[in-house]
């Protein structure tokens, strides 16, 4: 009887130690900013699909290009048709890890530095990227913030206005509040 109780206790302890939680959202936000001194080029996507594993730090951000909304419809059309070619390449994605996830205490509210490292795929071109962001824990719920500098030419994105009205390098800002 004692043996069985001990076994159950250790089994429970082991489960507790290894249990991992997957946080997810389908309404995260990504902001694409390729503004130049000549033109404001900002698109916001509020339908970002993201998952994060607390124990391993594995993280995925997926976005549909057609979900980026611009203030100017004509700019949105050009972004989709001439630059990102969203009918051919409908998705963009970051897959990687928060490499210092061990420093984040999910049970304690606060702000923690998060080092992201992984592969960013845009326009069907994949590049290794890394950046530093932040995880905010509030009542056990994490919110992830991070920003990537994206050189458009590195992802095969070309167009006559790049380097003029559109900046050569866009800033992609991620903000995902998990549920």
């Amino acid at each position, binding site marked *: 009887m004692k043996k069985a109780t001990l076994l159950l206790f250790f089994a429970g302890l082991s489960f507790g130690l290894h249990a991992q939680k997957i946080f997810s959202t*389908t*309404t*995260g*936000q990504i902001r694409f900013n390729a503004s130049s001194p000549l033109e404001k080029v900002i698109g*916001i996507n*509020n*339908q970002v*699909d993201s998952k994060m594993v607390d124990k391993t730090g594995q993280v995925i951000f*997926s*976005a*549909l290009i*057609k*979900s980026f*909304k611009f*203030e*100017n*419809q*004509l*700019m*949105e059309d050009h972004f*989709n048709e001439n630059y990102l070619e*969203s*009918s051919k390449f*409908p*998705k963009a994605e970051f897959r990687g890890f928060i490499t210092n996830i061990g420093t984040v205490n999910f049970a304690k509210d606060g702000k923690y530095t998060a080092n992201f490292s992984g592969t960013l795929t845009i326009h069907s071109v994949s590049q290794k990227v890394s950046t530093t962001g932040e995880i905010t824990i509030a009542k056990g719920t994490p919110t992830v913030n991070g920003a990537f500098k994206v050189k458009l030419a590195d992802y095969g994105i070309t167009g006559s206005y790049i380097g003029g009205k559109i900046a050569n390098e866009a800033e992609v800002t991620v*903000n995902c*509040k998990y549920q």
Partner: protein
Amino acid sequence: MKIKIVLILLALCFTSIAAVWYYVFQYSKTHHRDVELENAIAVTAGQLVKDYQANESSANAHYLNKVIQIKGDVIKEGKDQAGNYTVTLKSNDPFSGVLCTLKNGSKISGTHSTIVVKGICAGFLTDVVLNEGVIVK
């Protein structure tokens, strides 16, 4: 006579430039696609998800950037991080549904288990994603 022709040509040029300027800098800024005015492809939420799961490329060729009218059961209502109303419709797969972000000012009134919603298809992630949605009934 020549002066008259030159004046008419100048007026035409001016009008064309003004029209282009108005379209690019004024009209496009404020006018977005209006799903209510566009014809829609009618499909159930279950069938839409099934089509995407069976073959994403062919489903994109059929639905991407088109206005779709979906009938389905509501499994979730909420708001995105910018405060826009969202509604998720059930499919036959418990891990995948149809996520629709409603147009500014549009929201579900009352409690409905089955609704018809019209929106622009943006593609497939975990769910099939629609935006600029309006509730038809």
